[in-house]
């Protein structure tokens, strides 16, 4: 049976969205390939013509997901999204509205507003958010194509510290829930997938690993394993033992 990630009607085989920040440009191609990623995030910034262009290092056919990092309110997010579209990035946009420089936590209210403005303008909004049920509902009603709750502060590698709240979103919100930010290890990505997350977005965990390309592959495999476990349905948990081997037919002394 085919098991695809579907975002606003677009189908993806991979459930691993790779961030492209903090990478040596020369490693991006191999990291994307080893990650099996079909979506990669990018930022929009002032550029000059003499440093390398990141687009030259991303394999063909990979969907570009620009973010609105740098935006401090909804209006700025909309402007960055429009610049990204003008620069040839298509309609997918990861909305990121942040005005706290210590923990980089997203402003859910401004994010929901940006979602509405961008959806009306034909974008496919994928809001990065703090896992709050009401905010997620607002974003869905505003036209979000997926919800991207944070596991922990951006770049912290702390892991799934908001696990129980992401679980609520998975249960209650009928959109792909993509765990974004804070995932530090493949085991944590696997855990999120086991509980039913639709995909994982990771960047720092790979970019700061000892061997970047190997870690990209480790994440890929962990995400596949977690997804399979979710589809299979994990076994029950008991307080006491339950013998795995038959309790009859013992060999006589």
């Amino acid at each position, binding site marked *: 049976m085919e098991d695809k990630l579907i975002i606003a009607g677009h189908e993806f085989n991979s459930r691993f969205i790779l961030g*492209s920040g903090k990478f040596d440009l020369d490693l991006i191609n191999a990291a994307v390939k080893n990650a099996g990623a079909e979506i990669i995030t990018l930022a*929009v910034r*002032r550029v000059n013509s003499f440093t390398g262009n990141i687009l030259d290092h991303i394999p063909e056919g990979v969907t*570009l997901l620009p973010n609105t990092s740098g935006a401090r309110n909804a209006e700025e997010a909309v402007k960055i999204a429009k610049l990204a579209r003008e620069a*040839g990035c298509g309609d997918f946009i990861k909305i990121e509205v942040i005005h706290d420089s210590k923990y980089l936590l997203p402003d859910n209210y401004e994010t929901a507003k940006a979602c509405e403005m961008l959806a009306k303008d034909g974008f496919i909004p994928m809001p990065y958010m703090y896992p709050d049920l009401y905010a997620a509902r607002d974003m869905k009603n505003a036209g979000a194509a997926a919800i991207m709750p944070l596991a922990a502060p951006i770049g912290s590698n702390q892991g799934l510290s908001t696990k129980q709240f992401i679980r609520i979103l998975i249960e209650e919100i009928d959109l792909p829930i993509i765990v974004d930010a804070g995932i530090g290890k493949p085991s944590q990505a696997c855990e999120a997938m086991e509980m039913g997350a639709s995909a994982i*977005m990771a960047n720092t965990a790979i970019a700061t690993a000892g061997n970047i390309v190997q870690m990209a592959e480790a994440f890929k495999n962990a995400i596949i394993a977690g997804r399979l476990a979710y589809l299979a349905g994990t076994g029950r948990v008991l307080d006491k033992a339950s013998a795995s081997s038959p309790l009859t037919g013992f060999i006589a002394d």
Partner: protein
Amino acid sequence: MRGEKMAKINGEDFNEKITVGEYLKKAGYSAVRVAVMVNGEILPKNDYDSTEIKPDDEVEIVGFVGGG
């Protein structure tokens, strides 16, 4: 020259009388991979060749960089 108004491109002073399209070509940009903002407004690609950079204009040339 003192007192002369200067345009700014990505924060740097600029005072040549050329169009956005000519500037991009001269500076080695690929026009399809950037977006240009003039005084806070996005300039459509079709207008690059007909838009001259005027003194006092604030021009921003943006594109994609690594990000999460």
